[in-house]
């Protein structure tokens, strides 16, 4: 559906109400998995976060998150559109073992027979008690383990909440894997990761995330345009179910 709710810059700015922030900053990070490598820029101002990829090989989706309302906006530069949805407040099915039967797959509703999926192992952040200082921030070492894979996460509670970078609306069939869940687990604990490594049973590295710099910023009113879709962009309807 084509929605005509085109936002104007003035309307956006008037809607922005900033909370006092522990740290307004730009955070540069590198995420790698296999041979893929992403350069990520987190811009944090008050209760808002903008996440974008800085590679210029193609137009990339920009994420804008408002922490108070859990509202997530995905801005698509390809077609001058954006969609909005709420970030999931409850943990995904694989995040914790549960005795309650999960519901039917999304989109199915209550119609038809349904075999509930098996519950995966419970994933929990384990505080190892180890501490260090990374980029001037006190970090604790957390661990996640699943089927022989082990993830080490150095994270701090001195930065705003962490948000995963996503390129499209939330997936319906959320993966149970450790590499897909660690970001939600950190968000639930209000931790921001500075160094993450996932290794397989044979010790090979499968995934990494590393913050390279944290630069405190003072944002002007003009800068706050970064936290809303550009003027003239059209709101699109997210895909259903």
């Amino acid at each position, binding site marked *: 559906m084509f929605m005509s709710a085109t936002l104007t810059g003035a309307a956006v700015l008037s809607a922005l109400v900033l909370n006092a922030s522990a740290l307004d900053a730009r955070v540069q990070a590198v995420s790698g*998995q*296999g041979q*893929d490598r992403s350069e990520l820029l987190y811009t944090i101002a008050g209760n808002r976060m903008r996440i974008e990829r800085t590679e210029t090989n193609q137009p990339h989706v920009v994420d804008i998150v408002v922490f108070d309302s859990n509202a997530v906006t995905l801005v698509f530069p390809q*077609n001058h559109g954006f969609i909005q949805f709420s970030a999931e407040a409850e943990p995904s099915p694989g995040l914790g073992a549960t005795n309650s039967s999960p519901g039917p797959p999304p989109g199915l509703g209550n119609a038809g027979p349904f075999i509930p999926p098996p519950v995966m192992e419970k994933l929990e952040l384990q505080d190892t008690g180890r501490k260090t200082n990374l980029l001037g921030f006190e970090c604790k070492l957390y661990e996640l383990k699943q089927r022989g894979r082990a993830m080490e996460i150095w994270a701090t509670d001195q930065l705003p909440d962490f948000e995963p970078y996503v*390129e*499209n609306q939330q997936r319906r069939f959320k993966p149970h894997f450790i590499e897909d869940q660690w970001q939600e687990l950190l968000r639930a604990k209000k931790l921001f990761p500075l160094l993450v490594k996932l290794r397989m049973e044979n010790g090979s590295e*499968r995934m990494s995330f590393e913050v390279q710099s944290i630069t405190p910023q003072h944002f002007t009113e003009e800068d706050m345009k970064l936290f809303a879709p550009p003027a003239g962009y059209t709101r699109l309807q997210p895909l259903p179910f």
Partner: protein
Amino acid sequence: MKTELRPIASALLLVISSAPFSTAFGQGSLVPPGPPGPTMKTLDQIEARTPLTNSGAVAISQSGSYYLTHNITVASGDAITIAADNVTLDLNGFTISTTTTTPSGIAIDLVGTRHSISILNGFIQGSAGTSNGLTINNEFNSGVDYSNAAPDGARVSGLTVNTVLRHGVYLGLNTSSIQSCFVDNAGDTGLDASFVSDSVAYNCGTGAGISGRTINNCNASSTSSGFGIYAVNANNSAGTSASGVGIESTYVNYCVGSSATGDGLDTATAYNSTGGTTSTGGANGLYASVLACNCTGNCAGTGRGLYAPAALSCVGYSPVGNAVEANTAQNCYGNTYSADGVRAKTAENCYGYTTGNGSGIVVDAAAMNCYGTSAGNGSGITVSSFGPNNAAFGVAQNCIGISSSGVGIQAINVNNCNGTSASGTGISCSGATGSAGQANGAGSIGINASGIVIGCTGTAPNGGLGLSAYIANSSFGTTYNSGIHEYNMP
């Protein structure tokens, strides 16, 4: 003979020749009363149709059947608006286009909340050009779309849409259907309806190539982060995406999903389907949250070839990730370079193969009738699990495990198995029955059991230790460890 027949023949000729003439002469004039009257019904008698003779914008505000007699071109805004129910619009093979460079209009706009709309047989055409080095498109915002609420009973058939800013045909998920349509180059979603069949949508954008509740016999692609196909049920269809998921559908049957950097196919339940990704990162070939049956998953990076809690008769391939990963794997084949061929809680009738340092088959609880091979230092088959109170209970039964430099088979209990290693241990276990272990490396062990072996054979032809156990009963080893307790031994 001739003289006797002549009177009878003469009598018959008289009867035959005289009888018909008495009735033929009673028919009257042979001159027809006039030409035959027309029996064909006119088009208006069959279906009253209203011609739309405009070559500019058209507004339909009354029910009825309409058809174009010209191409329609507008300078801006909508080309055709439909603000009435029970409307059939036949484009009659003509084309709708716009000259605007600020695409805000809709080619065919369903205004308000519409019911029973049919749109048939025509073209919606945009164009891409350049001006002063900038790409300028003369295009609509969408081809067919609604501006208020999703229509009920809307049907679009035989429509081709080329180059629109956002949607090709977007009807929403009320009782709507799209058949035999073609979309090329839509910036958001190509085709959207509750039922889509026999259609194609290429080069779509951030939404999906095709989205709907049920999608049959379709082919769709997204050139960005959108889904190729996004549905509840997808049958006999193919979806491709550049950086999104090829097909995301609750149920898929006879489908192929592929992606350059995302998952090939994400689903709850997949039958007879294939998912593939060329991502060198962590994307998965096929991910099923409940079941995959007769499926194939293929990836090119660290992701899984195929994942499903229940994987039945599936094939997976991954160079760096696990080829098949499941809770229960039956009749599966997994092939990988450096991870595990099949990784599951239980595996039955499976074949796992790795050319690197992973293991052929790794299971948490039990492997039955399996064959695992590792060309590196991983094991052919590994079964390792711990139950309550750390009581180990992993079992390998009727299995064959082969490793180059790792262990052929390692499990807590090994029954009726055969484990071989070129330079490592043939079988490593707590207890074994009816099994054979062979270690070909110097100093390696054929069977290394910390507990009891019964009816087993351990061989080490190149100077290693044939059988090492605490208790051996009715077993044979080329050599034995010191301190072994032997019963009924040769």
